C-alpha cells in the first residue's frame, strides 16, 4: 500500500468521530490563540520597552570608557568620537550613533538645590529616534545648538527646584582633575515623561557648553549611544564593535548597561514561557487522549488489518499520519481562530490604563505604555506552529506503538 493511500485512509479516519476531532482541534486552536497572543504581547511590548530604554538611556549599544561601567566618572571619557562613529557606522543594522556626556550634577536655584543626573546632548544629532524625552517636551523647546545656554529639566525636578521657564539654574559638577566647576543656564524646556524616577532626577544640557565647563576636547564624550534597527541584534553588534575597538573603548549592550530592566524582562519572558508550556502540556494531553481513544476503539479493526497483511510498521505509520493530519488541521484551524483577535489587538492594543493608574508604570526608569499591542515575531509564530506539530506527533507515538503491537487473534475477538 502506498504512502498516499495510507495517508488518505488516515485523513478519513480523522473524521470518523467528527465531534471528538472538532473538540480536539478547538483545544489546539485555543492553545495556539493564547500562545500567539501572549508571545505577541511580549514580543511587541518588550521590543517597545527595550527601544524606549535605548532612547531614554545610552542606546541599544553604548560605547564608553572601559572602566566607566564599574565606576562612572566624568574622568572616564572617550576621545576621537568622530573616528569611533565611523567605525560604528560600518557595523550592520546600526541606524544612529550620537555622542553624549552623562554624569552627576548639583542643580541650584536661589532657594533650593538638588543632585541629579545630567545628559549633555548635541541637538543637531538627536531626534525622537535617539532621545525619547524629546517626545515628552511639555514646555519650551530644544536647544538651538550645542553651545546653547539653556537647560531642560524633568517636570518634577523643576517643581522641586521651583524653577519655571526662563529661570536661572546653576549646575555644579566635578571635572577630570577633581576640581569643582559650574555653569549657569536658564530653563529652556520642561519634560514630563510620566515616570517619576525620570521626571524627578534628570536634566539635559547642550554638549558643547558642558565640554567647555568640563574642559573636554571638541570630540570628547562619555558615551557614544548606538541604535540598531532590531534590538535582538544588539549582542552581535556589540561583539563586532568590541572586536574592532580593540580595547580603546568598550561596547556594552543595553542588557549590560541596564541590568535591572534586562532582569525584569527575562523574568517576565520566563513567566510567559512557563505559562505557555503549561498550556502546551494541557493541549498535548487532550491530543493524546483523542488519539489514544481513537486507537483503542479501533483495536478490532487493527486486528483485521493485521490479519489481511498490514505489518506493525504500516499500522504505526497509519496512526502517525493521523497525528500529522491532526496537527496540520489544528494549525489551519488555529490560523482561522487566531487571526481576528490578533488583528484586533495588533491594531487597537489592550488598554491596561485602569490597572496601571494615573501615575503610569516604569521599570528601571523606563515608562511602560499602558496600551499594549500584540505583534509576534515571525520566527516565534513558526516556533509555535512547529511546537504544535511536534507535540501532536509526540502525543501520537504511544497510540501508534499500541496499534503496531496489536495481537490480531485477541483484537478480532473484541466487539
Amino acid at each position, binding site marked *: *500500500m*502506498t504512502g498516499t*493511500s495510507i495517508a488518505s*485512509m488516515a485523513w478519513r479516519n480523522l473524521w470518523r468521530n467528527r465531534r471528538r476531532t472538532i473538540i480536539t482541534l478547538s483545544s489546539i486552536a485555543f492553545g495556539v490563540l493564547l500562545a500567539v497572543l501572549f508571545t505577541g504581547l511580549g514580543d511587541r511590548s518588550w521590543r517597545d520597552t527595550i527601544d524606549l530604554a535605548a532612547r531614554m538611556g545610552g542606546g541599544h549599544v553604548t560605547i564608553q570608557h572601559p572602566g566607566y561601567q564599574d565606576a562612572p566618572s566624568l574622568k572616564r571619557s572617550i576621545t576621537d568620537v568622530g573616528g569611533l562613529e565611523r567605525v560604528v557606522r560600518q557595523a550592520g543594522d546600526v541606524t544612529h550613533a550620537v555622542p553624549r556626556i552623562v554624569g552627576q550634577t548639583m542643580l541650584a536655584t536661589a532657594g533650593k538645590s538638588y543632585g541629579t543626573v545630567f545628559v549633555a546632548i548635541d541637538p543637531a544629532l538627536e531626534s525622537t529616534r535617539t532621545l525619547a524625552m524629546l517626545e515628552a517636551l511639555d514646555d519650551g523647546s530644544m536647544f538651538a545648538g550645542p553651545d546653547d545656554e539653556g537647560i531642560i529639566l524633568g517636570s518634577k525636578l523643576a517643581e522641586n527646584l521651583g524653577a519655571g521657564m526662563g529661570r536661572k539654574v546653576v549646575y555644579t559638577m566635578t571635572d577630570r582633575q577633581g576640581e569643582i566647576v559650574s555653569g549657569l543656564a536658564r530653563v529652556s524646556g520642561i519634560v514630563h515623561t510620566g515616570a517619576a524616577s525620570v521626571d524627578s532626577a534628570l536634566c539635559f544640557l547642550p554638549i558643547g557648553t558642558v565640554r567647555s565647563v568640563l574642559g573636554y576636547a571638541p570630540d570628547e564624550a562619555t558615551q557614544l549611544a548606538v541604535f540598531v534597527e532590531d534590538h535582538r541584534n544588539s549582542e552581535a553588534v556589540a561583539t563586532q564593535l568590541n572586536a574592532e575597538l580593540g580595547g580603546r573603548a568598550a561596547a556594552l549592550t543595553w542588557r549590560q548597561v541596564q541590568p535591572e530592566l534586562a532582569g525584569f524582562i527575562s523574568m517576565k519572558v520566563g513567566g510567559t514561557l512557563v505559562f505557555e508550556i503549561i498550556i502546551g502540556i494541557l493541549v498535548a494531553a487532550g491530543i493524546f487522549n483523542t488519539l489514544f481513544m481513537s486507537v483503542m476503539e479501533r483495536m478490532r479493526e487493527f486486528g483485521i488489518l493485521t*490479519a*489481511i*497483511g498490514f*505489518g506493525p510498521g504500516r499500522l504505526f505509520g497509519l496512526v502517525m499520519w493521523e497525528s500529522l493530519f491532526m496537527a496540520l488541521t489544528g494549525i489551519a484551524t488555529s490560523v482561522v481562530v487566531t487571526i481576528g483577535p490578533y488583528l484586533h489587538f495588533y491594531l487597537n492594543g489592550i488598554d491596561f490604563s485602569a490597572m496601571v493608574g494615573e501615575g503610569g508604570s516604569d521599570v528601571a526608569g523606563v515608562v511602560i505604555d499602558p496600551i499594549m499591542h500584540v505583534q509576534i515575531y515571525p520566527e516565534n509564530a513558526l516556533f509555535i506552529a512547529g511546537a504544535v506539530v511536534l507535540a501532536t506527533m509526540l502525543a501520537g507515538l504511544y497510540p501508534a506503538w499500541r496499534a503496531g503491537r496489536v495481537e490480531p487473534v485477541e483484537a478480532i475477538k473484541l466487539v
Partner: protein
Amino acid sequence: MSTSTTPIVSLGDVKKTYRQGKLDVPALRGLTFDVHPGEFLAICGPSGSGKTTTLNIIGALDVATSGSVTVDGRELAGMSRSALSRLRRDRIGFVFQAYNLVPVLSAYENAEMVLALKGVKASTRKERVMKLLADVGLTGMEHRRPDQLSGGQQQRVAIARAIASDPAVVLADEPTANVDSETADRLLGIMEALNRDRGVTFIFSTHDPRVMERARRLIRLVDGRVSTDERRG
C-alpha cells in the same frame, strides 16, 4: 474441482492450550489433517470444539502450543511477526463473520487493499478488482462505503478482498452467520463458483447446516480432536 496430492495446509498433532487464570484450558488436543489445493472444506462442531482456534492457527493469527503447521509449504513455527504478516498478505485470505471491512474505505478500496499492500500496479489492481466485484455481483456499487451496503453485500466485498491476491487458501469463519438464508445461499453460491472456476481453496468454520451440506469435505471436531473426516463426491 479435483485436488492435487501436495497439501496446501498440513496440521501435524497440533495442540493449543489457553491459560485462564491459573488453569490451562486445552482447545486443541492433537489435530492432524491435510488440506489440498481446490478443496471446499468445512470444519464443524459444537461451541468450544476448537473450530475458530483451528482457523486462527492455520491463518497464522494464533500460534500452536505444539505440533507442526505448514501453510503453502512453509512451517509457521519460528516465523517472525513481519514474515507471518507477509504470508497472510500473500497466501491467505480471510472472511470473517462480522465482515470487518474498513469503514472509511469504499467497496472497491476494501477489495483493492491487499493488492495495494503487495505493491501491485494501479492499472492491474483496477482490472482485477473490477472483475472480482463483478464476479461477486457488486457491479455499480464500487464506490459505496460499508455503511451503504447490506450485510450480504458487505460479505461479498469481504470475499472479493479475500481472494483478490490469489491466495493459496481462504479461511472463512462463520461467513453466513450474520445474513439471512437467501443471502447465505447466494454467498455460498459465489464461493462455490470461485472454488470451481478459479480453483480457490476454502476452509470454513461453521455451524450452518447449509455450509456443511455444500462442503465437499466435512471435518467434525469434538473437544479439540477430529471426530470425523468425511469426503463427499
